[in-house]
């Protein structure tokens, strides 16, 4: 069956089967391999994308349900030479070790800051609670999201000047 959806701002039309998961669609059909599979059961958050504005485990979405959806993956945030402030914060805070959870973590952090630009540490922890990291013990990841909040606040005040 045919679906149409927007990925990282670009409209795509694709032929899918129901047993294709959104995860497979993004990774294999569109080459967006920043979306990772860690468990396939919504228990780790590595496959997190932002779908219609909400955090979503792409391993738990049958492709036809992505029809008409708007999807953001880590590839849609920033590039190596032009990092999004939250990506920059992850680099600067030392939040990255093996990196496998990081795309999902970054999107979880972004979703949190979109809704709550000045989160407390506790709110950050809850915002990231669907994303498992096995390397960092989370401390530097939490730091990174707090740092990103500061950066975005400064950016926001600059642009309003």
């Amino acid at each position, binding site marked *: 069956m045919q679906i149409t959806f927007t990925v990282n701002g670009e409209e795509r039309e694709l032929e899918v089967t129901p047993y294709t998961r959104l995860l497979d669609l993004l990774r294999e059909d569109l080459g967006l391999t920043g979306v990772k599979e860690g468990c396939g059961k919504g228990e780790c958050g590595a496959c997190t994308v932002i779908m219609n504005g909400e955090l979503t485990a792409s391993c738990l979405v049958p492709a036809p349900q992505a029809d008409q959806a708007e999807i953001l993956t880590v590839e849609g945030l920033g590039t190596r030479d032009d990092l999004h402030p939250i990506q920059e914060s992850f680099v600067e805070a*030392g939040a990255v070790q093996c990196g496998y959870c990081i795309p999902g973590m970054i999107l979880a952090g972004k979703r949190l800051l979109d809704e709550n630009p000045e989160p407390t540490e506790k709110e950050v922890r809850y915002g990231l609670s669907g994303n498992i990291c096995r390397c960092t*013990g989370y401390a530097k990841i939490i730091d990174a999201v707090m740092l990103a909040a500061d950066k975005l606040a400064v950016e926001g005040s600059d642009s309003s000047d």
Partner: protein
Amino acid sequence: MKKFGRGLATIMFGFGYGEGFPDHSIASIEIKEDERIVIRTAAADVGQGVITTVIQIAAEILRINPNYFEVVQGDTHKTKNSGSTSATRQTYFTGNAVKKAAEDLLANLYHYGSLEFRSNHPEIAIEDGKIYMYDDPDDYISYWEMAERVRERGKKLEAEGSFFPVTYSPDQNGQADKVYVAYTFLSQVIDIEIDTDTGTIDLLDVYTAVDLGKAINPKNVEGQIEGGTVQGLGMGMMEDQVIRNGKTLNAGMTDYLVPTSVDIPKFKHYLVEEEDSEGPFGAKGVGEPTLIAAAPALANAVYDAIGVRFFDLPISPSKIKKALKEKEKEENS
């Protein structure tokens, strides 16, 4: 009701394979004409940061910004054996191998520099990718230019370094002069609260002091301490692959639980840096030691909180609740 507890543990870890096992690392560094310095090592970066560590070491020795470095790693046909990323050994072993290669290369920069400038080594300055005479900094040869000139001499501006310290296999009584190259020491205090209604543990604060010789990259060391400690706490309170009659009952992350971002404690670290080890710049490995103290410190904190010792891991809510009940019965009788 919440009951506070505090526990201490001190651990040691002899790193490297030790026991007389051939344990070594080979690395090479090449200065290229196209403004790149290429480090070749087979040391696997599993996230711990060995790539960054070796760049820092080489940049320090070669007196040039890390920006110029590129690491070729993880290809059997492009690198030589660096040993495994295990046994807490890469900073010490590959770090030393890279340091030796960098030192060899630096010495050769002096050598070729002295030929080009027709001078003695002490008159030559090397920094920021430039070789010049002290009395005339503006007349310099860049590393890249030097690479070209060395090529014209039919050679490469390249060096290989190896590190291969000796250890001995223990005899039948487990005795030998040197079984491990060195030991890392770490002490940790963990503060917890136990919810006596549910038997669950709240992790509050973790204080860590580690004797690591020298932190090549303090932030990465902190990352190791935090990540290792959380794995150790997982071991202490929740992780358990249940295998009954040969079959795993909880294969998958639904019921094999590791800590989440809301389970973890707050951290405070102290790095004991005496720079007294034989590792690069006095560094010792920290990868494994950061995990080891957490489970026993937690067990000691649980005892402090509720007066019950647990000899089996993990210290699960079911075990705590049962122990609380038994203790209450005991105290009432």
